[in-house]
Structures are given as structure tokens and as C-alpha cells.
């Protein structure tokens, strides 16, 4: 950026009243995105925030950036159009578990496959909030909701598995209230060129309150959250004495100092490893057998769609002898009538 503009997070707040429920996780997520954006060295007018439908999708209205609140499930497709049309923009897609993984599932996997440079923030509250409490594609098996009064008989998606299974180049996970950590996460998301998916475990205070309390409660969280850092060992726990190792191809929780395990035995996180196998395993880990994995799980370099599109156009324009409409109209077999 040539002319550097200093922003504060307030510059990113629109004049609209925020209408999420008091205590909703969305508020904290927005706050960390606004703070991150203020520090990204990107001009405010170069942000485009695109959403679908759902509670989280009201997000663009509260942002003082270019914004587009679209239709259910289609944010990924519309964001793809925006980014392909103008690769200079920093495009943020705000979506939820229903918007991205149910009605918009097709667009979600295909934007990942194309690796378009879009920053996707997936608010996962495991419930449909705006329609007042039906199970979603990430709701746990057996959950009782208005449309599953006797318990859901559907197996949930794990977004990380879906992203990596769709040949995703970036996947990260955060928790709504970890504002400072999320700020760093969003900086990473912006830095990564390609489709960056960050799943935020988000509490819905009305319809699914406490769904993540097993991992967020103050007393236990150190033992139940593992914050990954590229190049550092996968250690967690109040005493920083627990870690992950690979045994017969499977991840396993071990305690340093027990059974001869030393700190050096703990796996070092390599987010840039091309092979998705360990990243997939990490994103799949579930409490109570394992801690919940947070931070950047996968971040690899790969060509992005929008750059390839524009490079190809430039290349063909260079090679072709047709550069104007008049030339095209008169190309090929034509004849004169006198």
C-alpha cells in the first residue's frame, strides 16, 4: 500500500444498530475481525464483505466496508464472482453451518477446489438460529430440536474434514470469545493466498447455549484446547505437560514424563506440509478422547484461481491477432457484396 492509512476498529463499524442477541458469539467474532482489518495494511475501500443468509450473515450491515448480504447458501458463489472480477479486493465471506454446509454445500466445496483467494469465516453454532432452532449439518447425532423432537438421526459434518477433503489449502479453527487469538488468526487468513476457511466455534445463547462449554469453560479449557503454532510442538494442558504423538499412524495423547515420553517426542506442527493426512487427522480430533485443535491446522501455497484467470487473459491477448470487436466481426470466412 503506497499511501498508508491508519485505521482503528471503529472505522470498520457501520452506523447500523447491531441486532444480534445479547451475549451472542457473533459480536465477539465481529469485534476481532474489525480489529484485524484495522491492522491489515489494506485500504478500507478494498474490503468486500459478502454473506449468505442466517444470523451471522447480517454481518455486512454492521461493517463500514463494501458489503453484500446475498441469498441463502450462495455467498461462496457471489464472493467468487467478486474476487474473480477484481482480484485486488480483499474478499471476506461470512457464513454459517447451514449456509455453507447445507444449502450452500456445493458452492463451498467448489470454491475450495478452485482455491479462489477468499477469506471464509464459518460461524459454527451447530443450530439454525434465524429460523428459531432446528438441527444443522453440524449438530451432533441425537440432538433434540424442533425438527428432531425425538433426536436427530443424522451424522454431522466436521467442517475441517470437508475442507481438507475438498483439497483445501487453508483451514483454521477458533473460539468466538478468544478475541485476541482470533485477531491473529484473521491476519493469517488474510495473508494466505487461496481459499482460507476459518471455523469459529460460536455459541448461540438462545437455541444451543453451552454447546461448546466443554471446551470453553475456564476451569478445563487449558486441558481441552490445543493451540497449534507452526513449527512448535503440539503441547497442551494447564501444566503444559500433555502432547500429541503419532503411534501406528494414529494420533495419541501422551503425558510428558510418563512412560518415557520426553518433550522431544511430541509432534511438531507443520501447517505447510503438502500431505493433508496429518492435517485431516488433527481437524478430526474430538473431545473427550482428544483436545479440540485450534489455530491454523493447514496453510499451504498453491496457485489461486483468480490469478490464473487473469494471467491467461493477458497471455491470450498478447498472442491473439483479435483485439477489438471490429477485428472479431471481420475474422474468418467473410465475403463482399458489391
Amino acid at each position, binding site marked *: 500500500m503506497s499511501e498508508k492509512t491508519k485505521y482503528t476498529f471503529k472505522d470498520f463499524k457501520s452506523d447500523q444498530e447491531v441486532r444480534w442477541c445479547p451475549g451472542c458469539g457473533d459480536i465477539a467474532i465481529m469485534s476481532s475481525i474489525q480489529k484485524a482489518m484495522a491492522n491489515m495494511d489494506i485500504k478500507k475501500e478494498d474490503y468486500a464483505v459478502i454473506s449468505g443468509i442466517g444470523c451471522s450473515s447480517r454481518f455486512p450491515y454492521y461493517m463500514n466496508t463494501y458489503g453484500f448480504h446475498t441469498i441463502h447458501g450462495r455467498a461462496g458463489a457471489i464472493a467468487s*464472482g467478486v474476487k474473480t472480477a*477484481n482480484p485486488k479486493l480483499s474478499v471476506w465471506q461470512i457464513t454459517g453451518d447451514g449456509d455453507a454446509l447445507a444449502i450452500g454445500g456445493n458452492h463451498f466445496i467448489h470454491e475450495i477446489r478452485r482455491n479462489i483467494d477468499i477469506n471464509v469465516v464459518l460461524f459454527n453454532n451447530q443450530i439454525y438460529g434465524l429460523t428459531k432452532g432446528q438441527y444443522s449439518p453440524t449438530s451432533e447425532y441425537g440432538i433434540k430440536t424442533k425438527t428432531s423432537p425425538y433426536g436427530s438421526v443424522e451424522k454431522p459434518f466436521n467442517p475441517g474434514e470437508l475442507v481438507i477433503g475438498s483439497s483445501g489449502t487453508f483451514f483454521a479453527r477458533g473460539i468466538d470469545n478468544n478475541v485476541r487469538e482470533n485477531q491473529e488468526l484473521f491476519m493469517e487468513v488474510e495473508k494466505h493466498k487461496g481459499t482460507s476457511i476459518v471455523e469459529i466455534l460460536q455459541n448461540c445463547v438462545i437455541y444451543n447455549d453451552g454447546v461448546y462449554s466443554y471446551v470453553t469453560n475456564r476451569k478445563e479449557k487449558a486441558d481441552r484446547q490445543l493451540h497449534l503454532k507452526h513449527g512448535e510442538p503440539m503441547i497442551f494442558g494447564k501444566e503444559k505437560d500433555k502432547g500429541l504423538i503419532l503411534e501406528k499412524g494414529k494420533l495419541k495423547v501422551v503425558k510428558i514424563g510418563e512412560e518415557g515420553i520426553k518433550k522431544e517426542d511430541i509432534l511438531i506442527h507443520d501447517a505447510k506440509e503438502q500431505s493433508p493426512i496429518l492435517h485431516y487427522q488433527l481437524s478430526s480430533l474430538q473431545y473427550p478422547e482428544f483436545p479440540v485443535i485450534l489455530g491454523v491446522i493447514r496453510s499451504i501455497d498453491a496457485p489461486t484461481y483468480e490469478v490464473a484467470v487473469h494471467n491467461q487473459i493477458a497471455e491470450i491477448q498478447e498472442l491473439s491477432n483479435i483485439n477489438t470487436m471490429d477485428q472479431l466481426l471481420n475474422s474468418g470466412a467473410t465475403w463482399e457484396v458489391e
Partner: protein
Amino acid sequence: MSKKKAIIEKDHVVIKFSGDSGDGMQLTGTQFSETSALMGNTVSTFPDFPAEIRAPKGTVGGVSGFQLHIGQEEVNTPGDFADILVAMNPAALKANLRWIKNGGTIIVDKNSFTEKNLIKATWDKNPLTSGVLINYNLIQAPITSLTQVACEGLELNKKTVVRSKNMFALGMVYWLFHREMDFTENFIESKFKKKPLIVEANKRVLSAGYNYALNLQLTQSYRVNRAIIKKGTYRNINGNIATAWGLLAAAEKAGLQLFLGSYPITPATEILQEISVRKDLGAISFQAEDEIAGICTSIGAAFAGKFATTSTSGPGLALKSEAIGLAVITELPLVVVNVQRGGPSTGLPTKTEQSDLLQALYGRNGESPVVVVAASTPSNCFRYAYVAGKIALENMTPVILLTDGFLANGSRPWRIPKMSELPEITHHIVPDGTTDYEAYRRTGDTMIRKWAIPGTKGLEHRIGGLEKMAITGTVSYVPENHQVMSDERKQKIEDIKKQIPDQPINGKTEGDLLVVGWGGTFGHLVTAVNELREEGVELSFTHFNYIFPLPANTEEVFSNFKKILVCELNDGQFVKYIRSYFPQFNYVQYNKIQGLPFTVIELKENIKKNLEG
């Protein structure tokens, strides 16, 4: 050599090439029509092929045909019935016998009339000997075996050699019409540039066919003289290419980059293919994961300041409905091309119909007015694609352009326009440096909002599918505001009436009968009307390209006729639509839902009946 037979002069002739879908009939037909156009004839073509890529060989279901009509005066249709049929196998003869003029010429590949092929084509008896062809001029040419003879000495296997038999048939027909073969020879050379043996085989077979017909003086030959047409540079163009080029031309004129988000669907795919080629003109094509993503990527591109378009056919338009509503409420410019085909559902993918009109007009939730225009000839798909772009960009609205399978695949010689002759296209992008932008502030006394593009400093704003407050564009649930915004959206489209030309009348402005058509049926209707006039019948004709809004003088045009006959390839959608505006007139209708264009004959009969009744 037998005695030279007479040359017959004809004003116009209809020829149909027909064979198995792998026999190369589309290519053969295209070569003949391009050569004829280069030699100065007017041409109208109609390819007719099965939806299956390789339907069972030798069956009637697998027959692929290419009909073309050449003339020394304007030809507006590919013709109802063929003067000459080339049938490469018994199935092709079976499928087309009912479409040949009594006394017409039938050229068959005698070698293909084997017992096995006759059974596959469901002939009980061999038609070449049973007498069913007694009223035709039958030419039995051993096309397959002479193709092999022509290729003797070439190191090619039998299968490859036999594949060039379509060139033998083409050579015969070239002789029949005194055509020159250099255009096709050049075509063969460039198509098989890397395979010199194939070039040699095809050229040998082409000449062999020509010489066979010449030496045997099989039948009388024909001369169709050059047509007298307007001075200029011409080319052949089909409706899909013309549509793609019209969109490209609109983008260039407006000074915007073209974006096409689309998903392959018959018969619209060629538009996506052509725009994908046109990276040399800077066009962005996005082959989306589905129809919905096709339009949604395009809406995203419109938000980002591109001339955004999407192309589809009936079922795809249904999938795009919700997104069109988003373009309506966000008031973004967008062109949606719908190449109509037979419906409902998958229907008849490769056949033509006009049955998406009501879907285009009304197929959305909410009060959701969208401009609808329709092309009426293969080549004027260019003009109406251009017009659709102009209306969309100048009025900040989605526009649906209706073409159909008949226009899309049919081709006509086209006088090439110069870009400088085309009308200007302006757009409403807010210039850099503007500071007082409000998303829904209307411009002057129009209902048009301004277009602020992401990346422009100080114009940050939000749009979306929720109803917005007039002027400011913030979310609003105020009841009276919804009325205001609904009225404004409606008014904006109605104002477009002032930008479109008056509805023209072909013939007198008053009388007993007005024939009305819209879209792709123009060629057949105008031919029927002209032929009836020559027979002394008095009638008038008007054909609609601007569907919504209708031209301002529509009511006046209708008011001077006792009877209005509306002809459509559907169950009466346009008549239903105009009746809703002008219930006071006396409408009658002629409809056909067979996946086929009208025939001139049936139109004439029906018009006459209505004049008597």
C-alpha cells in the same frame, strides 16, 4: 458419358443432409451452406440432431440431419419440405421421408441398405425396391464402396476411410448445384492440418463424389443465381455465436469488461464456449459448479463493476429464479440469456419451443419486474443481446434475453456491422472522488440508482436481499417504504418504454386480420404472410422483440384490426400476456408444441381459415 441433361433455374431450393449421428452430417451441411453463401445465395439453416451423443447406430432415433434453404432472393426459413434429401442409411430415409416434396430427389448410399440396417431402421421391405419411392427421383449411389475405391493406396484403415463418405455425398451435391469446392478443400486442409493422409482421403473422396455425379449425369442439375442483397461485408453466423458477440460488443461499447458466469446446458452451451474463447477481448468466463453459481458469480461480478451476464436454457432459468430476484432488489445490471427448448423439466433438450415466456415474465417470488426482450432471427441475436446489455447497464436492472433452439443452431448470412454504427451505451458507475453517495438515491427524475464499485474510496455501502430504505439503502421493514420501493422498481422498468422503438407493422395499419408473433418464429411467419400476399390475400403482420415492457404503441397497433391471430410455439403464453393488458380485442391463436418450428404451409392454412371464419 451419357447425354448432358438440362440445367434447371430455381429461385430457391431446400436440401437436407441426413445420416447417423456419427456420419458428419452437421459438418457436411455447414460446408454446403457456407459455400452457397460465399457464392452469393441467401441461406437459412436448421440442424436437427438427437440429444444422445451416440444414439444406437442405424436406428431412427440416432438420425442427425441438417436442413438448409438457399435462394436468389431473401429466404427466411430453412424450408418446410426438402427438394433434395441425402440419406446415408435406411434410418435416415425412414426419418425424413415425410419431409420430402413430392417429386423431390433422394440420394441414398446404396451400400448401406443391407438387411441388417433395414431391420434396425424398422423397414419391413427394402424401400429401394418396394415401390414406396415411386414418386421421387431416386438416385442410388454406392457411396461407401466408391469412397473406399477413391482411397485405394492410402495407408489408412477401412474404418477411417469410410468415415470420409460424407465428403462423397457433399461432392455429389456440389456438382448438382454447380458449386466450387475450394472453400471445403481449404477447410479440410486446415481442419486436419496435422494429418496429411486424412486431408488426402477427404479431398479425394470429395472429388470422387463430384466426378461420379458429373460423369453419370445422374439427374438434372440446378442453378440458383446470386441474390441481390445490400452492399457490405457478410459472414454466416448462428444465433448462439451472434448472442455471444452481441454481449461482447455491448461490453466494448460500454467500456467494461465482460463477465459470463454459466453452466453448460443444451442448447445454450455454445455461448459459454464462445465467450471462453474470447479471452483475446478480455472477457472473463466462469464455468460454475451449477446454474445457481452461474448467475451468482455473475451478480458478484456486477457488484464489482463488470458487465455481467449468464446464459442458460429453461430448466436453468428455473434454478436461477431466486438470484434474478436478488438482482432485481439490489438493482444491479445483469443480462440473463435463456435459449428456450422443449419443456417442462428436461423435456426436449435439442428441440425448439417458446414456452419459457411466462417463466421469464413472472417466474419469481415477490413483485419482481424484469425486462424481457426476444431475438427473432439467428443473426439478430447479436442486436438483441446488445440491446439487452444496453438496457441493463443504462437502467441498472436485470434483463432476460429469450432466444430458442431454432435460432441458436440455425445460421444466416449476416451483414457485418461496424462498431461505430452501434448506439452508445452509458453506465452509472460513480466516479472516483465522489463523496455523497447513497445506494438508493435515484438519478434526476429517473428511477435509476448509481453504481458504486468496491475499491472506490469513500463510497462504502451495503446492498442485499433485504428490503432497503429508499435513498439511504439501509435495511428497512417500514411498511410504507416497501410500497415506495416496490413502486420505484416497477416505475423504473415501465420507463424503459421511452427508450424502445415503436412496434412496426408489416402491411396496412388497419384491416380484418393482424398476424402477431414474437421471438424465433419470425422467419416462418413473414414467409407465410408474404406468400399469402402474393396470392392476393390482404393481411397485416407484427412481430414483437420487446416483450416487457411492450412498445408504447402496442394498444394502438392492435386497435385497428377486427381479429388478432397470435401464433406461438407454446400453448398460448404471449396471447395470455397481451390479453392481460388489452382484454378488449378479439384474439385467436395458433399454437404448436411439437419441439419443431412452424411450417409455412400450416401457417398459411391457419391464417386463411381465420380470414374466412
